[in-house]
């Protein structure tokens, strides 16, 4: 995979794409290869989607030489950004594109999960729709498997279709090692130190749901592991410190891993 790490892999300097990638608010995008952009097969169907398609493509590939007034130029510029986004959604599910996005993920370019229990797990950009102008970009956390709004308003206007619905799942299919360990820790609302009944009852129900899922998956031969399970296995040898350690853990992080016990 090291071969794909370089940001530009052609001698040709791409002014427009360089500018686009480095401009503020476009931090989520990676640079699309020249080769990929010039292969017409990869652009199938986009000519109906993008206005001034040919001019926009010329602009993205830096061969644009049209004397146009400012109005038209602005239109073409807008189309070029749209085109780039749509090609981007296709590009990032290819091997090269995935490798570039993994680099960006490791650099934390997409931000961290806002959920406290995820402890700042790096996020991935995604869209809820593959058709443009349906919804803006969302961020997926692989640890809690939920999606969040970007915290910065400059990212809030990016079209979700520029990343697509499949990208993040594809990434974990190709790089299963990047899949984080899941945790069963949760926030436990308390009032004056006492658990709140409604929340605790829901938590117990959810824990039951999780156990049922584990059981049914075990029946078909799939072992589901959470971080907490492994730490329990390590401690299984002796009884006395075991219960102490658990008691501490429950009090310590105020997020009981054992709420299905009905206490």
């Amino acid at each position, binding site marked *: 995979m090291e071969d794909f790490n370089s940001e530009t892999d052609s001698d040709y300097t791409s002014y427009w794409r360089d500018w686009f990638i480095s401009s503020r608010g476009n931090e989520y995008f990676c640079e699309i290869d020249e080769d990929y952009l010039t292969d017409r097969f990869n652009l199938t169907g986009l000519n109906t989607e993008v206005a001034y398609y040919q001019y926009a493509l010329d602009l993205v590939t830096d061969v644009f030489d049209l004397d146009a007034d400012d109005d038209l130029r602005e239109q073409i510029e807008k189309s070029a950004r749209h085109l780039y986004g749509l090609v981007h959604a296709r590009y990032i599910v290819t091997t090269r594109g995935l490798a570039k996005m993994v680099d960006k993920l490791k650099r934390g370019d997409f931000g961290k999960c*806002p959920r*406290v229990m995820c402890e700042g797990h790096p996020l991935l950009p995604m869209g809820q729709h593959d058709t443009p102008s349906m919804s803006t970009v969302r961020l997926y956390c692989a640890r809690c*498997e939920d999606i969040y709004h970007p915290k910065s308003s400059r990212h809030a206007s990016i079209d979700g279709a520029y990343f697509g619905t499949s990208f993040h799942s594809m990434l974990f299919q190709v790089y299963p090692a990047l899949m984080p360990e899941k945790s069963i820790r949760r926030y436990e*609302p308390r009032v004056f130190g006492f658990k709140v009944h409604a929340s605790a009852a829901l938590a117990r129900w959810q824990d039951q*749901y999780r156990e049922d899922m584990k059981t049914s998956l075990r029946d078909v031969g799939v072992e589901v592991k959470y971080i907490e399970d492994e730490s329990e296995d390590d401690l299984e040898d002796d009884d006395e410190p075991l219960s102490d350690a658990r008691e501490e853990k429950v009090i310590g992080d105020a997020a009981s891993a054992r709420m299905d016990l009905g206490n």
Partner: protein
Amino acid sequence: MSSSEGAPESWISSFCSLMGHEFFAEVSEDFIEDDFNLTGLQSQVPMYKEALEMILDVEPEEDDEEEEEEEEDEDDDEIIGDDKPPGYRRAGERRHARVASDLSVIESSAELLYGLIHQRYITSRPGIQQMLEKYEMQHFGVCPRVYCNGCRVLPVGRSDTPGQETVKLFCPSCQDLYTPPNSRFHSVDGAFFGTTFGCLFFMTFPDLDIGSRMDNSLSALSPTRSSSLTSSSINNQVSPDVPPPNQPVEINGMRTVNFSPGLGPGRIYESRIYGFRVSERSRSGPRMKWLRMKPIDIRELDEMSRYEALHGEGDDDGDTEMGSGNGTAAQNAAIARRKKATMRRRRYNPDQMSINGAEAG
């Protein structure tokens, strides 16, 4: 010094208008002046008396420029009555020294003290009312989770002891905790809001509409939401199954409509590749659905009546006494829940039962 002279603003309102202090309510002076509300804080805050004076903008005594060489302990400042003139002079000297070096110490003490008073104040009747106004004006922001649809959040702490964790945001829609998006809140102590406030707030105002914005934005997202099951299966999202009729108005002391409206089927994200769901059997398949799950029939959460339905009314003597009977009742309930699950699970966690006993007893 600027707190009393020059600026007409009180210390409290200038503190609350500082950058990053937008979450704080202005504690009323009546609340601070009531000694009962300050019980125990003296031992937690260094230079307590000076800090309290600073918060209340009280000048202890008149400034006296006369130099005194007597070195006195803090406790001696309490002396009143018989040796008043030295007391005056000592106070003057103290203020003089404060300008030089102690001011920053007292300032930080005052902030700590104010935070701890604030933690108590916002659980009081006037305080929680003040926070309600701030909440309704969306001063604390909204939940970043997509399926919470911009539900307003509340600042809470994960600890009541200062200096442990910074302030977090509690979302009533998904009952989860989030880090404030703006980094200027990453230095605000969570203990200044406390662990109790978040839930107590929503218990105090049970009719507060949590999911109000949800419906209009969600219907825009999935127009076939209200349609029948057959047509919604084509939909991108899993349509929420229609809950059975006669849902209770309240469940476990909460309004059913306000009980975590951001959770449950239809509000859980499902990974898809080219439109196909990622299977649970896949190595990278979904594992965290439980976290955002909620029963379609909310009555499933009424554990008491479910237990009674399972066992009949005959043997539920556990709730008559609180002491030893409580432990067995809890154990019985745990066993009853366990009966539903397969025996296999117990084999995988062979220590489950012993822990159960240890925790209940």
